[in-house]
């Protein structure tokens, strides 16, 4: 089929209307010591020491920034164990035994509305930095860096699009905590001294639309609007979202702040709300456990640091256990696959998708051009693939693979079932040399 692929069967009906089950008190919690951006760490506590909930127990150190590690429950520091992180790598984790008391650290304090109204942009940036807030949509880029821009911002966009198939974590968050989203957005608007904001959702999400049409009435005069955007993939990519919401086409690599726009994920918005209102880091989040390989797909609200192994039995375990499975963290188009189900929910895990392993027969490319038509950044994946096969560095550079956002549409749309995206990844590596 020679056609542009925009719509992917999104399979969200598996979990979209199910309430999130609270599973917030596991026996042990695990905190990652390193991640993709920070490869070194320091720990401030000793084995056997008691920690308070939200206490800073260590620090991740990366080349550009540092991230405090906060305990997500009160209890005892048991030791360091190795588990799989969301990036698919075996990582050191701090293991904390929960004492189920939830004694909060003295740092955690509720700010009154008057106190919040007096906060300046610098103060809010400092609060967010101390709470180690990162982009919770999956990018895990530190949020405070976004706040440090000195460009004038006239529009804040909240990304509630969640264009990847299967995932419904943000969907549930938007339905269950609309006031937190709105309050977080108000604080951000206060920080940037910005008068307009839009909450972007897919136009087919009628349930979210109904909720926010109601809620926005209570925030009259705040300049917050609801914005319905397209139903296609990758609508959630910031460039596509800004194009549809604001009509501005960003150039490759251009930051949205250049155009006076700032965009945040809805989960980040709730994180900002918690940080500003209670001075509290992210300790709980929504995740979706779904896929063909799960008996009863469900949404959960869990404490950050919960092991997936405890959640799987609550979903009835695996369906068709005789078939091989693929375990995906994040969406099925861009998410990382892990070789083991021993995974820990970190701040940025939005979903666990278990799919039956499909064996596709790779045929020779017939140059149908579906990948070229589908590519959202107007690359020619098939040409890049042929260049990678011949290892022609000059040709690869000329075809500009570094523009690729790895959305996976080239491999998805391939009629010959070739893993085109893999070749593009190789091309990116070669082009960077």
């Amino acid at each position, binding site marked *: 089929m020679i056609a542009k692929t925009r719509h992917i069967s999104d399979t969200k009906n598996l979990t979209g209307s199910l309430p999130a089950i609270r599973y917030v008190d596991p026996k042990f919690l695990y905190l990652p010591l390193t991640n993709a951006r920070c490869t070194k760490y320091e720990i401030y506590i000793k084995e056997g020491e008691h920690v308070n909930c939200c206490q800073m127990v260590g620090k991740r150190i990366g080349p550009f920034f540092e991230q405090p590690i906060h305990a997500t429950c009160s209890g005892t520091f048991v030791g360091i164990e190795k588990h799989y992180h969301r990036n698919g790598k075996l990582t050191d984790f701090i293991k904390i035994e929960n004492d189920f008391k939830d004694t909060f650290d003295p740092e955690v304090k509720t700010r009154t509305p008057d106190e919040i109204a007096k906060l300046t942009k610098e103060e809010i940036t400092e609060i967010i930095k101390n709470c180690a807030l990162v982009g919770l949509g999956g990018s895990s880029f530190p949020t405070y860096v976004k706040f440090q821009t000195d460009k004038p911002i006239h529009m804040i966009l909240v990304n509630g699009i969640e264009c990847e198939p299967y995932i419904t974590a943000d969907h549930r968050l938007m339905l269950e905590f609309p006031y937190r989203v709105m309050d977080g957005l108000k604080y951000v608007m206060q920080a940037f001294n910005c008068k307009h904001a839009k909450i972007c959702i897919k136009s087919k999400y009628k349930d979210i639309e109904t909720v926010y049409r109601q809620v926005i009435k209570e925030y009259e005069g705040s300049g917050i609007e609801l914005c319905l955007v397209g139903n296609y993939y990758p609508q959630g990519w910031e460039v596509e979202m800004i194009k549809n919401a604001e009509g501005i086409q960003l150039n490759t690599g251009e930051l949205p702040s250049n155009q006076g726009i700032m965009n945040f994920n809805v989960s980040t918005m709730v994180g900002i709300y918690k940080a500003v209102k209670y001075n509290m880091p992210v300790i709980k989040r929504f995740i979706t456990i779904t896929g063909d390989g799960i008996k009863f797909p469900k949404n959960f609200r869990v404490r950050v640091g919960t092991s997936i192994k405890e959640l799987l039995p609550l979903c009835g375990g695996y369906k068709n256990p005789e078939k091989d499975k693929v375990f995906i963290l994040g969406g099925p*188009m861009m998410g990382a696959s*892990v070789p083991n189900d021993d995974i820990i929910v970190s701040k940025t895990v939005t979903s666990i998708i278990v*799919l039956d392993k499909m064996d596709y027969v790779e045929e*020779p490319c017939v140059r149908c051009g579906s990948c070229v038509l589908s590519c959202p950044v107007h690359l020619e994946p098939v*040409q890049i693939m042929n260049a990678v096969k011949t290892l022609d560095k000059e040709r690869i550079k000329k075809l500009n693979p570094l523009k690729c956002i790895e959305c996976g549409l080239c491999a998805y749309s391939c009629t010959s079932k070739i893993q085109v995206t*893999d070749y593009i990844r190789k091309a990116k590596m070669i082009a960077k040399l």
Partner: protein
Amino acid sequence: MTIIKENAPHLRRKATVTRMMADVLIALAPTLVFSFVVYPLNTLITYLLSVFIMIGSELVYVGLRNMMPKDGQKHSFKERFLYAYKGKITPNHFLAPAISAIIFTLIMPAGAPIYAVIMGALFGIIFGKLVFGGLGSNIFNPAAVGMVFAKLCFGSQYNLFVSTWYYTVPDVAAGATPLGWVNGGELASINNYSLLDMFLGRIPGALGEVYKITILIGLVYLLIRRSADFRIVVSYLGTFILLTLVAGLSVYGLNSDVNPFHFLAYHLLSGGVLFGATFMLTDPVTSPINSPSRIIYGMVAAVATVFIRLFAALPEGVGFSILIANMVAVVLDHYEWSNPRYTWKKFLGMGLLIVIPSLVTFLAIFYGGVYNG
């Protein structure tokens, strides 16, 4: 159950190459059936021979390509055979040559001798496809290569006038096909065949490409199923209609007996324009990879068709023009300028591809004396 690590994306679209090829076969079916009905014996012989030769060559090629390497030990023929073929044959090894064979059957003239069919099919599949590396690597359309080769070698031995129940050769036509008349410069003879007869295929010509109704059914099916790129079909037919209209108007300027729209319809319905646009130009393997290049590719093919028809010694130019366009496709895909975005340079090129040939057509007909009548 084991958990397997794989790279993103983890989902795939349902559409496959096999489905696209099956679509082309389905689209070809009405025309093939109709030519069976009209010329039972000729079609059956040509069809069986070309399918047998093309699929056979493809299978031999697969065997040669996967031959067991020499390791000093003796292996029985059965072992060697299994090594070469087991797990290496996919449905595409049958469907792709079958499509080429059916297209080749339908564009061969009804009265072509058997040795022309055999040589054409062999040359087409081997030098049109297999020497380049089989499916997906060929530059030229195998059926067009075979047809052109057979025509150049054995064209003089073709018997173009085979009478059947559907169509009897009229006395007046004993001498040329519709395009043969026009190419000979006798413009008045375009009234020898009525447009309705040409639409229904009641004219001398190839086995299948004369039945416009069944071809249009196939075209509509392919476009609905999106197994053919509509850009190629539209740009090819659009440019062809435009240039032929320019030619028709120029002829009208010289000789007001000729209706330019009749001239246009005559050219559109004769020869393989519709068939080529539907089944041969749209072959994804031999067309360029991005959409602006595909539009330019269709235009190049149309310009070549019109020029060969009007100015060259040959009456029919679709087969040649497809081969020329296939060569241009490779150039269009060069990495230095291949880009899926529409730029003003590309629009300029497309404009020039219409303006210059129109001008050449007009000058050649009006002042060059291509048609004396």
